[in-house]
C-alpha cells in the first residue's frame, strides 16, 4: 500500500479547443504517489491546476468504459493505469485516434456505437412468443457458456477501434469491437440469427477487411481477443459456404424440474404471518 513517497511527474496532454479550432500540448506537473492512476491525476489537475481540462471518467474500476485515451503511445484505460508503473518522468496523454475530437481528451463515439448496432447485438429467436413471455431459461451448458462468455466482456471503451490500422483507410469498416460482438452472438447456443448477421459481417466493410494486425487484442483491457474472434468468424463463414448450412437451431427451453427434486437441506421456513388478512394495512393514495 501507499509508501508515501512522492514523485513529480510531468503530464503532457494534447488539448483541443473546438470554439477556436486550436490544438496544443499542455504540461502539468503533478506530485504522484504509489497507487495513483491517471483518473486520480485528472482529479488533481481539475482541483488544483486547471478545471478546464475536458476528460471522461466514471466508475474508476475498469468496467464502465468511459476513460480510454492514448497514454505514452498506447490506447489504455486511464483508471487502470498506475502512473508509477509506466516508469517515465514525462507521461503523454492524447485522445483516441480514429474518432473525431470533441474537446481535449474527449472524442465522439457516435459512429462506434452505430457500428455496434449494425451487427444486431441481441439474441434472435424464432420463438418470439416464448422470448417475450418466458416459461423457463433456454438451456446453456457450462462449457457452452465458457466459450461464448470470453467474447462478452466488451465494455465498449473503443480502445480496439483506436488501435486498429484499418479505419484510417476504410472509415466504414465495422471494426474489431462490432465484429467480435457479432461473433459473440453467433456462437451463443441460444441464438438463431446466423443468417441476419452474416448479411452484415460477410461484406466489403466486414470481417474480410481485417488485416489481422492484432493491435485490437493487444490493447483490449478486458482480455477479449477480438482478432481471434474475427479469424474464427471468417472460418465460420467459409465453412458455412462449403457446407451450405445457413441456419442454426437455438437451444431449447429447459423442462420443469424433475419430480424427484428435494428441498435443499437446512433451508428454514419463513415464520407464520402475524398479521391477519383483514388487519393488513392498506396504502392510501389520493387520486
Amino acid at each position, binding site marked *: 500500500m501507499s509508501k508515501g513517497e512522492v514523485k513529480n511527474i510531468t503530464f503532457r496532454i494534447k488539448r483541443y479547443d473546438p470554439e477556436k479550432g486550436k490544438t496544443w500540448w499542455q504540461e502539468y506537473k503533478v506530485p504522484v504517489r504509489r497507487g495513483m492512476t491517471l483518473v486520480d491525476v485528472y482529479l488533481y489537475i481539475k482541483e488544483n491546476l486547471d478545471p478546464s481540462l475536458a476528460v471522461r471518467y*466514471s466508475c474508476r*474500476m475498469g468496467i464502465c468504459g*468511459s476513460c480510454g485515451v492514448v497514454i505514452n503511445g498506447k490506447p489504455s484505460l486511464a483508471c487502470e493505469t498506475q502512473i508509477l508503473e509506466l516508469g517515465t518522468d514525462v507521461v503523454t496523454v492524447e485522445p483516441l485516434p480514429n474518432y473525431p475530437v470533441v474537446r481535449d481528451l474527449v472524442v465522439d463515439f457516435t459512429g462506434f456505437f452505430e457500428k455496434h448496432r449494425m451487427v444486431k447485438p441481441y439474441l434472435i429467436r424464432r420463438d418470439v412468443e416464448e422470448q*417475450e413471455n418466458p416459461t423457463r431459461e433456454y438451456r446453456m451448458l457450462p462449457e457452452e457458456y465458457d466459450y461464448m462468455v470470453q467474447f*462478452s466482456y466488451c465494455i465498449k471503451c473503443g480502445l480496439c477501434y483506436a488501435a486498429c490500422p484499418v479505419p484510417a483507410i476504410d472509415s466504414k469498416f465495422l471494426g474489431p469491437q462490432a465484429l467480435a460482438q457479432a461473433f459473440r452472438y453467433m456462437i451463443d447456443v441460444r441464438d438463431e440469427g446466423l443468417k441476419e448477421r452474416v448479411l452484415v459481417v460477410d461484406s466489403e466493410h466486414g470481417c474480410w477487411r481485417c488485416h489481422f494486425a492484432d493491435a485490437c487484442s493487444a490493447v483490449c483491457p478486458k482480455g477479449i481477443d477480438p482478432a481471434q474472434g474475427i479469424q474464427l468468424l471468417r472460418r465460420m463463414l467459409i465453412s458455412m459456404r462449403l457446407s451450405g448450412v445457413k441456419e442454426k437451431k437455438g437451444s431449447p427451453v429447459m423442462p420443469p424440474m424433475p419430480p424427484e427434486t428435494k428441498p435443499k437441506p437446512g433451508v428454514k421456513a*419463513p*415464520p407464520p404471518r402475524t398479521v391477519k388478512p383483514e388487519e*393488513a394495512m392498506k396504502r392510501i393514495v389520493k387520486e
Partner: protein
Amino acid sequence: MEEFSHDVLVLGTGIAGLRAAVEVKRRFGDKVDVALFSKLHIMRSHSVCAEGGTAAVLYPEEGDSFELHAWDTVKGADFLADQDAVFKFVQLMPKEIYLLEHWGMPWSRRPDGRIAQRPFGGHSYPRATFAADKTGFFEMQTLYDKLQQYDNWERYDEWFITSIIVEDGEFRGITVIDITNGDMYLVRGKAAIIALGGGGRVFGFSTYSLTVTGDAIGLAYRAGLPVEDMEFIQFHPTGLIPSGILISEAARGEGGYLRNKNGERFMKKYAPERMELAPRDVVSRAMMTEIIEGRGFKGPNGLDYLHLDLTHLGEEHINERLPFIRNLAMKFAGVDPVEEPIPVRPVAHYTMGGIRVDLDGRVLDVDDKPIRGLWAAGEAAAVSVHGANRLGTNSTAECLAWGGVTGYQAGQYALNKKDLPPKPAEKAEMEEKRIFDSLLKRESGSITAYEIRRELGATMDKYVYVFREEEGLKKALSKILELKEKFKDISPSDKHRAYNQELVHILETQFLLDVAEIAASGALRRTESRGAHYRWDYPKRDDENWLKHTVAFLGPDGHPQFTYRPVIITAWKPVERKY
C-alpha cells in the same frame, strides 16, 4: 431556448432506465417514442459496477418461496419496508430473470444447463442469480444490446438534466444541457421516468462511480417533490483500501472469511448463526466495533481496516466465480487474494431512501397525491422495498422489477394521452437565466466545487457513517450549511460552452449538498437505531415512536421540512432481529 418533445422521457440509463425503455418498446412498439437521457454515454451508468447477483425465487422445488424471499427482505429491512411492495417485488422477479436470459444475458449455469444461484447475506436460500462477479455489467449490456433491436427511440448521450418541471400536479418537461456543445433545451414529454440513481458521492469513501451525485434526489427535491428515508445509507462491509472500490459480497457468499488482526473470525461474536453472511448493516457495525476497539490494521489516511480472507477457496474457484474481484484487488491494492487477504472496511454503497412513489412507481406529492405523468424507479425511488437496510442482490432486482413496471405504466399513459401538457415556458426561462446569466457569468468565487466536495465527503465520512450520535450529526449539519453558504458565490473559471465539465460539476455539487443536508437532518431527528441508521445515543429500535418513514421536502427557507408516513404492514409485525 430551443425545445423539442418525445412521448416518454427516460431520465437516467442504468438498469432501471434501460429496462424501462425496453419495456416501452417491446409493449408499444412504434406507437410510443422514447428518449433516453444520460450525463454519460447511455451504457456507462453506475449499474455496471454491480457485481454479486440479482435475487429471485427460481427453484421452489428446492425449498425457496416468495414468502421466504419476502420475509428475508422485511427482516433485512429492520421492518421499515412496505410489505405490500415487498410482495409485489418478489413475485415480479423470476420473470425478469428469464426475460433477461431470453434476451442474451449470460447468467452462470448449473451443470445441467439451468441458471445457477449462490448464497448471499441475509437470504435464507441461495437465490443470488449471477453472471460471474459482473452481474450488473452484464445486465446493462443485455438491456443496452436488446434496445438496439428497436426503432423509434432516441439517445441523448452526455446530456445533463438541470431541472424537472412539475406544475399543477403534472409533469411538464425537463431543462437539459447538451454537454458536448453547451446548448440548453426545454424537452417536453407526456411522461417521464426518473431513474437517475442514488447519492453515494456525498461520502468521500464510497463504492460509487465518481459520477453518482444525487441527481435524482436533488432534481425531485428542487421540483418540490418529497423524498423518503434518506438517512438510511448502506455501508457495504467490504470496500477496498484505499480506493473504496467494491469487493462484492459474493466473496463471502462463495465462502470468504472476515478476520481481525488477531486472525479471528470475529463475526462469531456478532452473528453466530449467519456469520459473514449476516445482512450488511450487522456486518458493518461488527467491523467498525472491531476497528474502534483496536483489533483492526492501521491503514492510510485513517482508513483502518480488516481482512477479507479468500485464500482457502483456491485459485480455481476464485478464477471461476470471482475473477473480477481478483483482478480489482491485484490492480488497485496490489494484493492477490489467492495468496493473501484483501484489506477492506465499511464503505458508503447504497441509498435506501429516494423519491416517494406508490406501488406502481408513480411519484407522489407531499399529500401523497400522484403527480400525473411522472414515475421513478431503481435506487432513485423509495417504493419501499429496502426500508432501513437493503439485502445484497435486491437492488439490481428492484431496478429490473420497477424498470419494467414504470416503463409499462408510462408507455400506457403516453399512448392514451393525446397532447403534450402545457409548455412550462416561465420555469424553463428562469432555469436558463440561473445557469447562463448568473452562474456562468459570475466572477469566480472564493471556493471551487472540488473543494466543497472534498470537505463534504470528509464531513459525511466522519459524522454520518456507520455509527452516529447527536453531537456529530449537529457538527455535520453546520458544516453542510456552511458549504451551502459558500456555494452561493461559486462560479466556473472555465467559461467555454463546449464540454464544460466544471459547470456540470458545480451543478452536481448542488445536488450533493441537498442530499447531504436531507440525510444528516433526517438522521439527527430519528432518535432510534434501525437497520443502517445506528445512533450511539439511542442504541435501540423504537417501534412505538419510529416505525414510520421520514418524508422530507423543500421548505420556503431553502431547507428541508419533515413529515412522517406509516409503514405498510400486511404480513409480519416487527420482532427482534437476530442473525
